[in-house]
């Protein structure tokens, strides 16, 4: 990847990220898609000595409904106001979201209120009438990948492994994929802006990997809400992902790193669906390209057990990546739960190599 021009752009888009004392809000869908990711974030934040608070009574931000044209913007703003009220009541001022769409929605709401204070006042009245709550707007809004980006050196220093092939010493070749709602709506809110976001690139570089540039790098993963939520529309979704896979395949990526709920889900699951539909696989020797979130990758490099990270629920097996980095794992424990009981093993795919 040629980075000279990109570094100039990255310099223009530096955002302030709070250093500690975060109020954390989870995603409504990530815990089903990649159940260990958010827990892993909380685990390494605690180990790095950071204060992260979450209130179990927080709800969806309603972004998924808003972007599916189901939830009106006024309702979404009132939901967001309630999350801010929970933060205010807990005594925090730094708001951190797990979800990219939530981050986009919170940014959109704050920007709307900035330009139209009368709307903010109206929402304050709505919230007061509905819940009796009041709120102070966050001093700092960040996505959890921003926070991980800020702590990338600490994670690297505390890590047991590097993002390199432990046999050859070559850096692992990584494709990074940024969720659309991270910085495309508000480039100034994302590290590195919209064209060449630096948030994941920074982690990959710091942790020893090599970033791969490819023609469809900024193409959407295909989630697109309405493209997926209606089954008949899913052809749009899978075709968008296929376009990305076809474009990246010649560059032989060994890993796809993401920071969104939808992107890892679809870049992972669609590799299976494409292999079943067309017999096409995108990794070496019938394997897929493993897809992980930045939390899972940080967890792996910090030496957490891959099965504690929930990597066994990925559709594309991650074992080739673990073997390359030299991370030990017990295949016998892959489908056992915490108590050692079998969770059941999924049916093997027809074409995609399964472990």
């Amino acid at each position, binding site marked *: 990847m040629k980075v000279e021009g990109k570094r100039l752009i990255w310099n223009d888009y530096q955002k302030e990220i709070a250093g500690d004392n975060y109020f954390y809000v989870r995603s409504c869908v990530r815990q089903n898609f990649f159940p260990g990711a958010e827990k892993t974030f909380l685990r390494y934040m605690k180990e790095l000595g950071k204060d992260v608070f979450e209130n179990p009574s927080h709800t969806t931000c309603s972004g998924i409904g808003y972007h599916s044209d189901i939830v009106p913007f006024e309702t979404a703003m009132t939901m967001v106001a309630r999350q801010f009220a929970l933060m205010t009541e807990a005594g925090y001022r730094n708001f951190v979201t797990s979800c990219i769409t939530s981050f986009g929605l919170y940014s959109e709401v704050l920007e709307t209120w900035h330009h139209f204070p009368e709307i903010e006042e109206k929402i304050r009245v709505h919230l007061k009438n509905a819940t009796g709550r009041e709120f102070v707007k966050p001093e700092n809004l960040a996505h959890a990948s921003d926070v991980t980006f800020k702590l990338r050196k600490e994670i690297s220093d505390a890590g047991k492994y590097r993002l390199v092939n432990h046999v050859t010493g070559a850096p692992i070749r990584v494709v990074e994929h940024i969720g659309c709602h991270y910085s495309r709506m508000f480039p100034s809110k994302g590290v590195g802006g919209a064209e060449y976001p630096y948030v994941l690139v920074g982690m990959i570089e710091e942790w020893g990997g090599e970033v791969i540039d490819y023609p469809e790098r900024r193409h959407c993963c295909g989630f697109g809400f309405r493209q997926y939520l209606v*089954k*008949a*529309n*899913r*052809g*749009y979704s*899978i*075709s968008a992902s*296929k*376009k990305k896979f*076809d474009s990246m395949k010649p560059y032989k990526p060994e890993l796809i790193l993401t920071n969104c709920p939808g992107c890892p889900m679809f870049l992972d699951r669609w590799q299976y*669906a*494409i292999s*079943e*539909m*067309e017999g096409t696989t995108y990794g070496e020797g019938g394997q897929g390209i493993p897809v992980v979130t930045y939390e899972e990758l940080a967890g792996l490099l910090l030496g957490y057990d891959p099965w504690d990270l929930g990597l066994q629920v990925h559709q594309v097996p991650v074992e080739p990546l673990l073997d390359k980095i030299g991370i030990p794992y017990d295949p016998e424990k892959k489908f056992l739960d915490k108590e050692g009981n079998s969770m059941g093993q999924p049916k093997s795919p027809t074409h995609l190599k399964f472990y």
Partner: protein
Amino acid sequence: MPDFGYTITKDRQLDHDHGDFRYISLVRSFEPSLDLCIGCGSCSASCSAAGFTDFNIRKLHTIIRRGEVESVKTELKKCMFCGKCQLVCPRGVNLRNLIMAMNRAIELLG
């Protein structure tokens, strides 16, 4: 293959690395007035064959410019050579000869 209830759509992105541009070069040499075309679509709007089939002469020369010739080969047979397209063309493109030129290019190049 399992029935997923949806299918993969074929990519319609134009890739000029894979287009066959030999045809348009020949067609241009046979009928240079093609370069006068402004793509207004009057030819297609007045087309007699288009009244009975899905023949679309503007689409044809757009496709051949893109280096995609497979669909042109069968489409060309639908032209009735009535010449109305040529009469209405505001730029004076010799459209009947253009059809002939496309046929000749396909004959020569296969």
